[in-house]
């Protein structure tokens, strides 16, 4: 079912002409059929090309803090869709849905995020003038 849902999403995205992260690299390092939610505190937000990176301190089940690296679209792309370099700040509490790394490393591809105040961040949508 997951696979079918993902296949449908891909078909819809392609049909809509929506570009993917694939413009710069493939999805191969990520498990695109899986979603994982990680919650923690923003350590750093890289507003850089070719991708933004959210570094999220996440408490693990052993009581230690693990830093997750979460890849997003570029500042050029996101900047035309409402994001700024201040969309996430160090210290922000946030839950982020990712497509996790296939090799189990603490990282993934950004899908969507929910901040403590309920604000939701997405990377999709049409550009604004």
């Amino acid at each position: 079912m997951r696979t079918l849902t993902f296949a449908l999403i891909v078909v819809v995205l392609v049909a809509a002409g929506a570009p993917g992260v694939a413009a710069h690299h493939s999805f191969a390092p990520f498990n695109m059929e899986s979603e994982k939610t990680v919650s923690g505190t923003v350590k750093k937000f890289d507003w850089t090309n070719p991708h933004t990176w959210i570094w999220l301190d996440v408490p693990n089940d052993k009581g230690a803090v693990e830093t997750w690296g979460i890849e997003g679209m570029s500042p050029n792309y996101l900047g035309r869709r409402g994001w700024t370099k201040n969309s996430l700040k160090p210290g922000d509490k946030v839950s982020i849905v990712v497509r996790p790394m296939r090799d189990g490393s603490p990282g993934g591809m950004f899908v969507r995020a929910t901040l403590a105040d309920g604000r939701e961040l997405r990377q999709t949508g049409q550009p604004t003038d």
Partner: protein
Amino acid sequence: MRSTPTTVLTSAAAMLTMWLVAAPAHAQAPAKAAPTAADWAALAKLPDFTGVWEVAPGGGGAGRGRGTPQGPSLTPAAAAKRKELQSLGREDNQTANCVPPGMPGIMGQPYPMEFLLTPGKVTIVIEAYTQVRHIYTDGRPLPDDPDLKFHGTSVGQWEGNALVVDTIGFSPLTELVANVPHGDQMRIRERFTLTGPDTMSIETTVTDPGVLSAPYTTTRVLQRHRSWTIAEYVCQENNRNFVDEKGKAGIRLDDPAGAPRK
């Protein structure tokens, strides 16, 4: 040493001689006259391509444009080559390492481009990978034996409200489409046409004897965004993606604010 009139004269003579000897090596194109006020005024009569454009929603993005659903028709040799390359299971290509895709892929990126019109030339400033295409519209012919470039060598001419561009001479580091290396005779014809106040279509036809069994035509629709500016895109700024020699894709996940992992 003091500069006496004699040494100055000798140096000047030496420089003049060097220039006279060196000059023919650079004189590949005939001397070009400076553009006149009339040349600049003539630009106003051309279709208005100015401004920043991006592939429109549904306009054929992700590097391919809208072509036949099955892609290009390949010769048996090229089809066999594609099968061989596909069987290698490469997970990514060199764009992951920040090598720009070149033509034709560079025209289908999810980033905008700006058209600049000056006398005898159209310049396309492409945001993705900070690339530039130079299209000469001054009537010069395509070169007989061009150096091989990521974007080839382009000349264009205005036909009514369309700009028709012919390009040849592509670097072997570029691909026609994924897993299809181009041949040395690949030729790309692009027809840029204004189709509305802020819409443009680009019809791209690729011919490549030995690789394509029929011309491969794709069409892409661009939307103009008058208020946009081209943003900086330095791929090496913080590129954590990579592909190795075997085609294995990976990500460098070392935490920039902490100790490197492993």
